[in-house]
């Protein structure tokens, strides 16, 4: 079994994602941009098996699911991007028999060391979020690295040093930053929008947060509407009344 680093000290960096479920349209940009970066990056390759055949499957570090949820007026279609939440106390790490799964002391990113991973899959059993993917061809477990090979990468322009999924997202639904710093943009966003943890009852303390969809603004939450009272003289057809108003308005 594997120990976690001590991340309890104040000011501990907790890098993670904030994902806005109010804005995500399910376009898959984060999934494919993740795949294209990571299949040649730290996690390379993310193997695709039978890619042009009857049962194409591959390793993805980020998948987008569509659901219908809620009742009545608030019944909604929801797009839910799912990837590693880089928990503060991740069972996927503590369960690892070889030390291959580990949490970085410096920034809290949870990684798998492909050189020591033996592909036993205990970590994928331990993760309640289904965030790990076994690459059967490569024989090792793969997962979101928070693009650890981008965010500090001096070969990239400073503004590009962010995870590929955040860089690509067309609606701006994905945000990256230090959730250990209460003043960071992401922490402020979580605060102002009521960001929440997935499965908090499991007590793995996910670093990634999700922002809830805002209430629908139809009947009971409607935005202000002008009063539409019929204009013009009191009698006559709607058309006649309208023309009487029009004549007056233009005279």
């Amino acid at each position, binding site marked *: 079994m594997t120990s976690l680093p001590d991340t309890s000290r104040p000011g501990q960096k907790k890098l993670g994602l904030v994902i806005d479920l109010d804005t995500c*349209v399910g*376009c898959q*940009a984060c999934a494919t941009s993740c795949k294209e970066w990571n299949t040649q990056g730290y996690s390379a*390759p993310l193997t695709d098996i039978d890619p042009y055949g009857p049962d194409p499957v591959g390793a993805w570090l980020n998948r987008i699911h569509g659901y219908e949820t809620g009742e009545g007026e608030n019944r909604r279609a929801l797009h839910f991007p799912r990837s590693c939440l880089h928990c503060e106390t991740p069972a996927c790490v503590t369960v690892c028999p070889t030390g291959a799964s580990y949490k970085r002391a410096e920034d809290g990113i949870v990684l798998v060391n492909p050189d020591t991973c033996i592909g036993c899959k205990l970590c994928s059993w331990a993760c309640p979020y289904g965030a790990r993917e076994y690459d059967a061809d490569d024989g090792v477990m793969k997962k979101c690295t928070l693009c650890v090979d981008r965010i500090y990468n001096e070969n990239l322009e400073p503004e590009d040093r962010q995870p590929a999924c955040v860089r690509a997202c067309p609606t701006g639904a994905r945000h990256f930053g230090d959730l250990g710093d209460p003043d960071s943009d992401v922490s402020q966003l979580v605060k102002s929008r009521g960001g929440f943890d997935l499965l908090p009852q499991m007590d793995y303390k996910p670093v990634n947060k999700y922002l809830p969809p805002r209430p629908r603004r139809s009947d009971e939450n409607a935005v202000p509407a002008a009063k539409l009272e019929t204009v013009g003289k009191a009698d006559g057809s709607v058309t006649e009344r309208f023309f009487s108003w029009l004549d007056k308005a233009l005279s």
Partner: protein
Amino acid sequence: MLAGHFAAAGAIAARDSSASLTVMAKPDSTDGNRMADEPEINLNLKTWDEVKTTTCYMCACRCGIKVYLKDGTVKYIEGNRDHPVNKGVLCGKGSAGIMQHYSPARLTKPLMRVGPRGSGEFREVEWEEALRTATTWLSQVRMSDPRKLALFTGRDQSQALTGWWATQFGTPNFAAHGGFCSVNMAAAGIYTFGGAFWEFGEPDWDHTKYFMLFGVAEDHASNPIKMGLGKLKKNGAKIVSINPVKSGYSAIADEWVGIRPGTDGLFVGALIHQLLKAGKIDLDYLARYTNAAHLVIRNKSGADDGLIARDRTGKVLVLDSASGRPVAMDKAAKPALHGEVKLPGKPARTAVPAFQLIAERYLSDEYTADKAAANCGIKAETIVRLAGELAHAAFEQAFELPIAWTDSRGEKHKSMTGRPVSMHAMRGISAHSNGFHTCRSIHILQILLGTIDVPGGFLYKPPFPKAAPPGLKPAGKVGEVNPLKPLPGPPLGFVAGPEDLLVDADGTPRRIDKAYSWDAPIAAHGLMHTVITNAANKDPYGIDVLFMYMANMSWNSTMNSGGIMDHLTKIDEKTGDYVIPKIIYSDAYYSEMVAYADLILPDTTYLERWDCISLLDRPISEPHGPADSIRQPVVEPDRDVRPFQTVMLDLGARLGLPGMVKEDMTPKFPGGYADYIVNHERGPGIGPLAGFRGADGTKSGKGEVNPNQLEQYIENGCYWKYELPEHMRYYRMANKDYLEWAQGFGFNPNANPVTFNLYSEVMQKFRLAARGHGDVVPPQVHRRRVEAFFDPVPMWYAPFEEAMTDATDFPMHAVTQRPMAMYHSWGSMNAWLRQILGRNWLYMERGRAKKLGLRDGDWVHVTSHHGRIKVQLKLMDGVNPDTVWTWNAIGKRSGAWNLDRNAPEAKKGFLLNHIISDLLPVRDGGYRYSNSDPVTGQAAWYDLRVRVEKADGAAISEPQYEATKRPPGLLRAAMKIGERMMKGRGQ
């Protein structure tokens, strides 16, 4: 719902569940736990050795991209931050571009058919043989009757070239995919306000507070809309989506209005009814920028009935409120918008302001909220509330931008009034036979609220606005098509009356697609979807060569796919040859259409080519200024393929087409398309690219040829943009400085303001012809239809298929939506995208399914008046109960796209196209109109009516067609993908 997204995840989960639990490692620390030694990892990974910019080509957005390369291999593609279209972001397709580029479905060498059409049996030929064959076929046509070449170019982004090529060849039979995409909406926009949705304009995302989307299913325009929605969310704007299906953009809308398909025009009419009734309209805007005050002649049965009254000098007359008399527009202090007035001269005629006719139409009982509610499936109180919300946003949240400007009349304004309401619409409007009128109604709603090209409203993108309609007419009239001669003008343009139609003296269409005929008079983009049927039926005539590019016309880009395959293989009993004797097709991939062609000219992928995204074609401009861009080859083809545009120029030179050869008949553009992009001039100083013109590249718009233009584009990230000064960014229909600048820049022939046509005089001219007035009149068989549908005031009518079929036989609507990760790209050859969506289902509302005794996962027959398919059902809540839907273009023919014959796309996926008829049922004397909008000829895909019943038998979709064979050159697809990626890893 959207269960396609679950498929791959499910497969992974299944694999995980086989996990072995037996492997345990020995503890090695004192507390029994293994402490991970954090391994050294390379945080400065560099898997590339160079980065090149170019332009994406997986849909019509044309985003700027940066392509990371290692030893000439594509490693990574990301959005270009500086680019005006996408500003750095990139969608799911664009980010999977690497798999589009390396797809094993890529064609590798020119092919000549050896088996029967449809079999996929080909032999490889050298380019010289392919080009010589094409030249022989084409020159025979050009020497005898150039009309016998039909050149239709699908999702072509080089129409400025291909249209010009057709002109020089001399055939009027040219168009791209507009006719089956959205030409009715494009025409409705351009004839109403000199602009249109999509790449021709966009909401003022920064200022809009209320945004209404009509029939937009995660498509057009992909990234700009997504970025805009993100911005609206951030700004707290309200987003309302009118769509039968709650997916994609509708899913994040603040309010989803699940309208019954084809009733949007009625819904919009009802909103207008409410606004008019309550006087919530912008009268000042109407008086200044529209033809609301123009007097319309009342002269029943006269040849001028319904035309705009003008004085002897041609000036429009209005009713002067002060004097009560008709006077020239510029002489009236206060033009009236209501009231009947006698016109001078004989015979005695009266006239009323155009606005009166508009108000009478929308205030009629047809457009009450109750009437609309019953038909649209929307509560009456919702309609009233939405109208009130629109009015509140437009008038009570109006604002001023402190920007001084001068209007066309010379009046100076201290500020610009903003009305923060904007709208966007797409296929849910266009794919109906009432789409032209519906779209006109949407624009009239925008105009009544005073929201076009104002801050917060819907903004033009230059070169728009243009005159409504522009002066350019389609060529191809009697006498204009001659052997060995070019056309006198381009084949596509804007008719302004019956005299501009392309018909013979007896009314027979001159074009093979019947565009600009009485079948489809305002067919501004042509009717690609009718070409094969008409050619096979020799109606109006037979052709010799069908030449197509990037259009999957035997499969998902056509109605009646099975019937079209029959047409493509129909034998002429007299000659024993195919009725369409020769088919040339260019495509980069082994699409379903390839098997039906005789000669294949393999195209490159988008990363291997030069292109120009030209202002002469569909621009990529931003509202605040024009822009254009290029593609540069970032990798060299590893196959014997050539870019289509270079091949066209080569063929043009071989045929000796004017403009493509020098005086000594040698090729004018020996350097191919890149050579043309730089050196071709359409007019003095006007070329395909507007940027970096002039000898030293310092001129914009007009300027001499710059031999280093492409290098300067590349240095600038492969795009060029021009920022308009603040005072020229709004009110451009009547913004003096803008209009003068636009004239100087070469966009418009003059600086006249654009008057919005609430009332369409052009439409009335066709109607008068149907009453027998004028020199060009429709044959009897067409008259009733033209009279009915060329109403100069927008109207709503039930879609044709609904009106012509029995609602008890076919009680439901069937429509498609565009999957965001596949839209416009047919991504089934893409190893990643097909994992996201490898098959489709038919989605039905849960309650309706229960009533029909159907359950989730059932296989069902879907039957229309035209045919039957077998598909698998999924249930959901977010869909109009009278509607079933599926994702567009996911079903593939077995064997196509170099997929396994048992690919889910072929065995579980399906197309609705098989049950959509390309012709309407017989009527009026045996004639069958195309299943299209009667004004523009736009294909009415979503008019489809069906019934759904449980099916027995195998769990496989129907129809199934015999698998096409893999052509020579295509490799058996890989068993897995991974090693190549690994190779470039720059540890």
